[in-house]
């Protein structure tokens, strides 16, 4: 528990609409793209093979959409802190990402409310490749109150 408390905890009362989450940079390497589903379980050959990705017209190995969603969930959970939790993520895939090109994760608070004794924060999140959104999403996060 003491280890958990050493993480940065956010409290509902301290959050303001339009507050921005600090951006985080990720580098989706080809190995990450392949390893996400496991080398023994290639869901889509383009995740494992840069040549297959090029044949599909995306210029290299595809970054799995689920890897980007996993990063967004990690991003919001890290922001919320150990007593918060992500309860949902809804994402639209705007364009494919190619392994080797950095992604920036960014987010913003768009709504706050209390519902059934729960403190709910709505976030707008995005993955940016060369400044262009590749995934846009909305997330719901539950935060503890100070009292």
């Amino acid at each position: 528990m003491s280890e958990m408390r050493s993480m940065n905890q956010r409290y509902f009362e301290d959050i303001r609409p339009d507050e921005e989450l600090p951006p985080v940079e990720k580098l989706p390497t080809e190995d990450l793209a392949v390893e996400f589903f496991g080398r023994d379980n290639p869901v889509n050959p383009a995740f494992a093979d840069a040549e297959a990705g090029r044949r599909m017209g995306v210029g290299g190995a595809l970054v799995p959409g689920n890897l980007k969603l996993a990063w967004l969930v990690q991003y919001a959970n890290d922001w919320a802190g150990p007593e918060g939790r992500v309860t949902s993520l809804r994402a639209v895939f705007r364009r494919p990402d190619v392994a080797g090109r950095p992604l920036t994760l960014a987010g913003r608070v768009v709504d706050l409310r209390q519902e059934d004794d729960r403190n709910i924060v709505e976030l707008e999140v995005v993955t940016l490749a060369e400044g262009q959104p590749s995934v846009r999403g909305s997330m719901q996060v539950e935060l503890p109150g100070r009292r």
Partner: protein
Amino acid sequence: MAEELESKITDEHRAFIGRKSDPVSFTVREQDANRLLGLLDDHDPRWAAGSGKAPPYVLGLMQTARRGAMPSILPGGIMTQQEWRFTRPFRVGEELKAITQVIDIRDRLGGRYGYSVLVTSSTDFFDTNDEHVAAILITVTQFDPKAARGSE
């Protein structure tokens, strides 16, 4: 002038809507949880090795449990939307039951694919007590690659 829409969705396709798949088992494996923690460089103690919990994004591996009959209306397909919902944390080693159903099929005209069909399906995951654990909702855009415009 508006393009005329000639739907390729038939009553046979619509009959898929609401039809639930047989349950498919999925085990939250420790090696998968640990592999993802390592890949994402995630040191969160809530789901660290030995905590008995798996990180929420193991849900991203569970699409292999999505086995329901999906109508194939057009030859190409790409996932365009996805939603994850978490009712409670995943426990390492637990066996979940996945039930998938098509919830919507609709036409779309315009964009890079010209005419396309959006097929939305959901998969709900239940534990051995039949309690809801998580859900995935996916929209796949089906299209005809021959009719698609070049990439933007």
